[in-house]
């Protein structure tokens, strides 16, 4: 991945400084210690459960999209990241049970 650096024409000092500054800023910062364990537990979750959760999410999205006022809300749900969409799915799966 290493490649020659681009130069701005006003010397390398600024580039060296910014590079060191950013590297030092995050140097020594480590992710949480239980990250690996949490990741493997989440990855090992059965696909069936995931499908049911996704179904719950889609079910509610269809319900919400049928009401014009909820379009903005729908867009927001669709843009959430995986961990957050899993939280949404938890709520939505509960709602799904109520609607069913």
């Amino acid at each position, binding site marked *: *991945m*290493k*490649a*020659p*650096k*681009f130069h*701005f024409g006003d010397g390398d*000092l*600024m*580039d060296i*400084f*910014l*590079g*060191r*500054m*950013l*590297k*030092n*800023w*995050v*140097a020594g*910062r*480590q*992710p*949480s210690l239980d*990250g*690996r364990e*949490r*990741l*493997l537990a*989440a*990855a*090992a979750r059965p696909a069936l459960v995931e499908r049911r959760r996704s179904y719950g999410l889609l079910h509610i999205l269809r319900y919400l999209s049928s009401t014009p006022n909820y379009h903005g809300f729908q867009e*927001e749900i669709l*843009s*959430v*990241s*995986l*961990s957050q969409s899993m939280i949404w799915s938890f709520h939505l799966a509960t709602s799904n049970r109520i609607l069913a």
Partner: protein
Amino acid sequence: MSDLNDRELILELQQGSLDALGELYDRFRNMVYRTALAITGDPEAANDLLQDVFLRLYRFADRIDAQRPLEPWLYRMTANLSYTWVKRRKRWIRPLEDLADWLAGGSRNSPQEAAEMHDDWQRIQQAIAGLPLPQRVVVVLYYLNDLSLQEISEILSVPVGTVKSRLHYGRNSLKRSLGLQGETLLDWNYEGS
């Protein structure tokens, strides 16, 4: 697993191996975490994003070309998820924090925290957080991860000229907000290299 190279691990991952996922996590977690941290400025968010990136790696392993290096895929996913996180925070969380500040009489920072705001590293964090998101991502990939303009262009799917322009404006903006002149660069107190 530790004796396998990245390509072999991706092939194992495509067979659903959790051991391969764990090994890839061990190899790339710091890279992903620090990139997410530099973009978001939030250690908790960086931890969440780290989880998201590797969960997606596992779920979408069959779409990854094992013949190509994994780093660009990881950078792309980290940058995209960090983008989403920062945009959502700006839209939803920050107004709530501002409201909390207002309710608390605008004194969320303790005297000690206020003193720390003068710390050099706090200034750097604020300067980077003050960059528009597209510039911030390019600055982080270029200066923190040592990627070339071409590599950043491929990762972000934007022309090289756009990368160059974002880098130029981001760099000038950092220079201004940190008050950097030639002599202050030499005086800046940072730890080693």
